[in-house]
Structures are given as C-alpha cells and as structure tokens.
C-alpha cells in the first residue's frame, strides 16, 4: 500500500521535498538529501522504511519541510499538500512533527475527505495535538499518545499538553479513566495506542489489549523511541494488518528493540534499529488472536 509520512526536518534551510525514502549508511535519504535519523520525523520515516523492508513491501513516501519551530516550513508544507492532494494516490497517511495550526489542519483534513477515498489517517506528535485542538479528532483512525499526551487528550479545555489541568496528572494508574474521558469529549481517534509502562491498544473506548512485557526502563529517556513505535506501526499498516494488530505487534516489537539492544538512557534510537528485524519477528511470533494482553 502506498503510504505518505508527513513531517519536518529540524533545519529551517531544508527545502520542501516529496519522494520515496530509503535508508543508507545510517542516514535517511530522500531525493538528493541525506538526513540524520536521531529523532523526530526522520527517525519515524527511517524506522518505517527499515520495517517495510523486513516485511518485503515497498518503502513509504515522505513529504518533508525544514522547520526548527517557527512554523514557516510547516505552513509551506500544508499549503503544498492541499494543492497536490488530488494527485496523492495514498492508502494512508502518518502525520508527525508539524507546527500545530488549526486553520491549516482543517484545510488538510477537508482536502483529504473531499479528494481521496477514505485513506487511513494516523496522527502523532504536533499533528495529533492540532487534530485534537480542531475538534476533529474522531475523524482520525489512530493517535499514538504517551501518558502526558493522553492526559492532554482527556482535558477538553487544553490547547497543548503544557496547559493540561492539574487534576489530570500524568498518573499511569488513571490511564483507563483518561481514555474514557477523551472518548466522551470526542477528543480521541477511533483507535488509540497509549504508550507507557503498560501500553494500551484501544478502539472506540474499548481496551482491546495491553502490553507490558518486556519492560526496559531506559527506553522512556531515549529520544525517538515513540517515533520508532509509530514507524513500526505504520509499516504494519502498510502491509495490510488491521489497526489493533498493527499497534499490538508494533508495541511488542518496540519493546524488544529495547530488550535486545540493552540500552542505557544515553542511547540514541539509531543504536536500537539494528535489532529491528529480530524484534519484529518476535512480535509476529508472539501474536495470538484474542489473547494478547501481557
């Protein structure tokens, strides 16, 4: 399935680029550009690319713009994407590190709904924030929040995780309450993959499975491990797996990345990726229909 990853590169001078990505010599390559895969959208795109290779499917496409936080690159990308939407023959999109902007978000979403045939919509990072902020969260197929972001989704008034109200503390023991609250306020996608000490795979306010093994403490500190998880899930979706199964196997594989690499909190996500093939194999071996909570 053709899939588009949409996000930014942390360099204001990086141009707007579109194309199929590949990974060579530890760098993400798109057209003539080589990009460091330390974290963010380059880490997600590189993981998806490597995972797709493990699954023997074509690499994803990416639409990337340089943006170090001022938002100019994101707006350029949004504008271009609306223009070319009718030509994007994609079965799915994974939106990632982008400057939250409700007006542009709505233009993108409405262009997809007007011009494409119901592609799968995955949102993580800044685009998940703006999807919630817009009031159109329920139009998405999958969000991938961590516990702090889950609290934000549960707070109907918060425009950003920074303003999540104090009674919605990042308390892992209350994840199920936060999930219910997010759905009751229509601030959740149809599926959630909630990342934490225990991961939750959710569809329409029903917890389908949980994953807590293997647990590797250091993974929480390593930048890019959320990106690698979204990348693996994206690859499984590209391979045609249903969303709950893609999320469950993605979570297991991401945990095995940690187990096999045995990292300290000083590791980079790039040091985990050599174990991707074995981790994904493990996630498929351990999949048991209707019996996947650990």
């Amino acid at each position, binding site marked *: 399935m053709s899939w588009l990853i949409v996000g930014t590169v942390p360099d204001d001078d990086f141009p707007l680029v579109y194309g199929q990505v590949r990974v060579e010599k530890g760098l993400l390559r798109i057209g003539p550009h080589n990009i460091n895969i330390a974290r963010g959208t380059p880490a997600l795109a590189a993981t998806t690319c490597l995972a797709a290779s493990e699954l023997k499917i074509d690499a994803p496409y990416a639409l990337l713009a340089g943006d170090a936080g001022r938002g100019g690159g994101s707006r350029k990308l949004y504008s271009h994407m609306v223009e070319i939407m009718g030509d994007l023959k994609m079965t799915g999109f994974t939106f990632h590190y982008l400057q939250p902007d409700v007006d542009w978000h709505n233009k993108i979403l409405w262009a997809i709904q007007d011009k494409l045939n119901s592609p799968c919509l995955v949102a993580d990072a800044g685009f998940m924030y703006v999807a919630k902020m817009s009031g159109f969260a329920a139009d998405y197929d999958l969000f991938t929040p961590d516990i*702090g972001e889950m609290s934000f989704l549960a707070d109907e008034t918060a425009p950003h*995780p920074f303003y999540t109200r104090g009674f919605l503390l990042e308390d892992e023991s209350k994840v199920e309450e936060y999930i219910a609250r997010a759905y009751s306020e229509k601030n959740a996608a149809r599926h959630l993959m909630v990342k934490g000490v225990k991961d939750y795979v959710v569809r329409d306010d029903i917890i389908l499975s949980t994953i807590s093994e293997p647990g590797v403490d250091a993974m929480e500190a390593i930048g890019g491990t959320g990106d690698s998880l979204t990348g693996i899930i994206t690859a499984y979706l590209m391979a045609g797996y249903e969303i709950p199964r893609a999320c469950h196997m993605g979570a297991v594989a991401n945990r095995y990345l940690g187990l096999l690499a045995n990292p300290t909190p000083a590791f980079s996500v790039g040091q985990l990726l050599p174990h991707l093939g074995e981790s994904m194999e493990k996630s498929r071996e351990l999949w048991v229909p209707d019996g996947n909570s650990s």
Partner: protein
Amino acid sequence: MRFLKSIFTKGSKKTRGVSERGIIVFHHTSEVIKAESLLKQAGLDVLVKGPPPEIQSGCDMVIEFPIINQLQVVDILKKHGIDPVQLVSVQDHLLEPVSLYNVKDFGEFLMVRAANMKITVDKKSLEIVNVSGGGCPDVPFLAELMVGQKLFEAPEPAGNGQTLCGYSLHLAYEEMKRRCHG
C-alpha cells in the same frame, strides 16, 4: 467565557474544538502598539483586541496570538524590554501551565519531565544524554543543540525554542539544573 468565545471566533471558519489562541495583557497601551509591530515583523499572526471583562489588570487592549508560539513571543518581547502583565489561553484564561515535575532516577542517570518534555543527564559528568517527548518542530532542533552538552553550559531552550514544547523543555531543564546544584 461567552464573551471570550465570541470575540475570538469572529471571522473564523472553525466551528468546534478548543482555541489555539492566547492573549497577552500589558501594563500600558504604548507597549501593545510596540509589541504588535514587533510580533507582526516576526511573521506572527497577531491581532489587537479589547480585553475580556474577567481580566481586571493591565491596560485596555490585549494582543491575541497563536498560543503555540508563546516562547517565541516571550523572547521577542523580552529582547525589546517589554514585560507583559500576563499571557493566558483564550480557551479559559484561568488555565495554568503544568507546574509539577516528574523525576526518574536511573542510577547513573537522572530524568526530569515537565508536561510532555523529558531531559536526561549523566549524574557524574552532568552531560545531557537525551531529550525526548514533545511534538512541535523545535523539539528535534533543541535536542540536536543540547544533547552531548554539559548541563550548565548548554544552550538554553528558552533562548532557542519557539513553542510550548520548547517552553516545557526549558522548565524541565531549569528543574534539572536546580536538582544538580545539590
């Protein structure tokens, strides 16, 4: 709140969701005019409005701005010697930023989390070994600047970031410094 919603949704196609706008309250009208000019020069989408009646302090004009750019706004105003009375969310001007930190001790490493941002330091060398979390585009940029630097010599997120994620990272960074001072 009805008043707030009416003035800040006027002319907008947005029909649902929460507001992505913030408001800056100033001491004097002259500051509003200067700030508006500076923020517009920086390419920010700002508008001068009347203040909501609930806000008693400050002058009789406020500036509405994209709340995601709060850190950039604060930085621009600070550089030009403007010290606003307050910056608040339009959605509910009583919203307070998160103020609690989550701290995790890995033995050799210490991680501090503020809102959605985490910073991790080697306790012995005080090197910043990782920055994680967040979702705005300045996060990977700040991580590239800071990882590998000594905690007390690293470029500060407040001076280099632009968004609320950058500001969250700054809070985590300040808390880490406070803890590592012993």
